């Protein structure tokens, strides 16, 4: 079918609905928008979803955004849409793409601009039955002892050279200089809790000032802490 790219940012979700016509099932719960859909697509777009999830995706511009992702220079294989995909800034939330070095682009939009917004899993080994009665008290204590949100300062306050050392070295600095954690912790954090080549002098003073109060807190916005129960282990070595 013919399709003209939108000429403005006010593109309506009607385009997403028309994409349903060209979404071809290629496997159970996997649908593909082929490269032939639009001339600037470098790879196809593939969506993992059932019929209801696909219907929900047509309510916003996420399918169109996923097609736009397929045009990124250096993209390989396909742009993928997860079952919870929804509209984001340019890149859909729940969209996945890989670009190939050396000339593939780096897209901050692929992570919603939340650089290093990550997940930490702490395993306790405590059985559910053993703490069931005290869970409300435990949740209350966690909310008291783990500062979160703007206005709740952490116990750690680093300025100037100390802040720069933290930004440069990462978690190893906290362990070495402040006794926060033990070296074994670094093995359980992505990239050891630090990025090689990080340069604190590339971070503006305003950015450091804005982040200062959130240091040592859970953060603000949509950050959260929750207690989970492990029902089953699917990958024993990884677990």
């Amino acid at each position, binding site marked *: 079918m013919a399709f003209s790219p939108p000429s403005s*940012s*006010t593109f309506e979700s009607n385009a997403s609905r028309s994409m349903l016509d060209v979404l071809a099932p290629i496997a159970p719960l996997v649908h593909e928008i082929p490269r032939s859909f639009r001339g600037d697509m470098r790879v196809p777009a593939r969506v993992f979803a059932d019929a209801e999830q696909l219907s929900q995706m047509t309510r916003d511009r996420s399918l169109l955004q996923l097609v736009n992702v397929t045009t990124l220079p250096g993209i390989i294989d396909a742009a993928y849409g997860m079952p919870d995909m929804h509209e984001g800034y*340019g890149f859909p939330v729940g969209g996945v793409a890989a670009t190939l070095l050396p000339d593939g682009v780096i897209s901050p939009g692929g992570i919603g601009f939340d650089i290093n917004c990550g997940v930490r899993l702490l395993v306790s080994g405590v059985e559910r039955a053993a703490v069931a009665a005290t869970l409300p008290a435990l949740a209350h204590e966690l909310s008291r002892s783990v500062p979160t*949100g*703007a206005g709740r300062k952490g116990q750690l306050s680093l300025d100037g050279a100390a802040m720069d050392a933290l930004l440069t070295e990462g978690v190893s600095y906290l362990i070495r200089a402040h006794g926060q954690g033990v070296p074994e912790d670094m093995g359980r954090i992505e990239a050891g809790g630090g990025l090689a080549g990080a340069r604190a002098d590339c971070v503006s003073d*305003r950015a450091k000032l*804005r982040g200062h109060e959130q240091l040592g807190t859970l953060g*603000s916005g949509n950050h959260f802490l929750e207690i989970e129960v492990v029902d089953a282990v699917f990958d024993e070595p990884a677990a």
Partner: protein
Amino acid sequence: MTPLVSHTFEEHVGEVRMRVDAPSRAELLAEAGRALAQLSVGSEELPSANESPETVELQAIDPTALLVDWLNELLFRSETQLKIFVEFSFDRLADRELRASMRGVRVDELRTVVKAATLHDLEFEEQPDGIFATLVLDV
């Protein structure tokens, strides 16, 4: 008919979309600032200012960018000082620059922390009877 100064928060899948209407640019900027303050305290009722005035000077490439930069300056000061701003006056306001004085009040916490005012789907239209702007706030 001169439009009233107003703002509304519209439905958005993951962020906050805000529409602001005003008869002039100065009133639009002030109303957008009050809207941010309402978001911050989670209430339509805003406390009175009791802090000393602060001055803001900004330069941008056009009136639209000036609006976004203005809101991001308010967000920065609000978060770093734990303060909301509720009174605004403009000593100078042109297409690409402004000088404003504003007063605020300190708060214990920010109920909604807005990361940034964005250029995404930004609408800014000046008509003979007033101005409206629609912005997406990254929360």
